[in-house]
C-alpha cells in the first residue's frame, strides 16, 4: 500500500516537472523570437526611416533603443556604429554578420549619435540644408 502511494506521487512529480520543462522551453522560444537581433534590426531601420520621412530641418529626435543596445553589447559591437545613414539609406547592424537597411525619401541631412547621458537612446539631428 505504501509503495503504491509512493509510485503515484513520483509519477505525478515527473509529470509536473515535464510540463514545467515543456512550458519553459516554449516561453524561451517565444522570447528568443521576439527579441531576435534580425527582428530588431528591421524594426529600428524602418522606424528611423519613417521618422526621417516626416522630419524637418533643425529637428532633434530622440529614439529609445534599449533592447537593441543590449544585443549590440552582447555581440561586442561599437555602439557608435550600430546605426549609419548614408545618402538616404538607414542601416541598423547589431551583429557582425547581418544588418538591415531601408531607404527614406525625404532629402534631408540627418546625423545620429548615442545619447551619452542615458546610454539607451539615440539622438537624430536634422541639419539645415
Amino acid at each position, binding site marked *: 500500500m505504501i509503495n503504491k502511494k509512493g509510485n503515484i506521487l513520483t509519477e505525478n512529480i515527473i509529470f509536473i516537472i515535464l510540463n514545467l520543462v515543456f512550458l519553459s522551453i516554449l516561453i524561451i522560444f517565444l522570447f528568443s*523570437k521576439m527579441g531576435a537581433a534580425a527582428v530588431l534590426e528591421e*524594426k529600428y531601420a524602418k522606424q528611423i*526611416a519613417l521618422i526621417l520621412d516626416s522630419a524637418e530641418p533643425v529637428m532633434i529626435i530622440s529614439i529609445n533603443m534599449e533592447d537593441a543596445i543590449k544585443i549590440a553589447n552582447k555581440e561586442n559591437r561599437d555602439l557608435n556604429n550600430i546605426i549609419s545613414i548614408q545618402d*538616404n*539609406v538607414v542601416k541598423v547592424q547589431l551583429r557582425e554578420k547581418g544588418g538591415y537597411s531601408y*531607404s527614406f*525619401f*525625404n*532629402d534631408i541631412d540627418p546625423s545620429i549619435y548615442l545619447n551619452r547621458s542615458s546610454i539607451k537612446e539615440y539622438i537624430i539631428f536634422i541639419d539645415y540644408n
Partner: protein
Amino acid sequence: MILKNKKADKIISVYWFAILFIVAAAIAYMVISFYGEPYDIREAEAYALTNKVAGCLSEVGYLKEGVLNEDFRENFMEKCKLNFEVEDVYNWREHGQYYVEINFYDFSTNQSISSIKKDNEALKPDCGLKGKTFPVCLERSFYILDKEKNQYQINILSIVRKTEKNVQ
C-alpha cells in the same frame, strides 16, 4: 480497481502530452510566421509622402506662389526636397520604387490646369489591384485658394512599391 485507474491515468497523461505538443507546434508556427514576416510600412510611407507633397504645395494655408509654373514642375524634386533613390537591392535602382502624381484642377470648371509626375509611372496600373504583392497607392485631394482667391482642387497620388522588403 486501483490498477484500472492507474492505466487510465497513464493513457490520460500520454494524451495530455500529445495535446501539449500540438499546442506547442501551433504556437511555434504562429510565432515563426508572425516574426518571420517583415513589417509592412508602405502605407505609412505613402501617407508621409502625401503629407510632404501637400505641405510643399501650400504656404500658410494658401497655394504657394509659382507652384503652377514650369520651373516648379521641372524642379519639383529639389523644391519639395524629395529624393527617390533607394538601396541597391532586388534591382530596385533600375525600376523606381516610388511614384507621385499631382493634378491641379480649376475648382469652378473642374478643368485640368497642370500636372506633375515623378519617378516610376509603370507602378500606376497596379493601383486598385487587390493583393499584398502589389504597390500601395494612396490618393488624396484637397481644396485650396491662391492669394488672388482663385480656387483649386489638388489631387495627389502617392505610390510606394518596395514589395520585397515589406511582404513575404
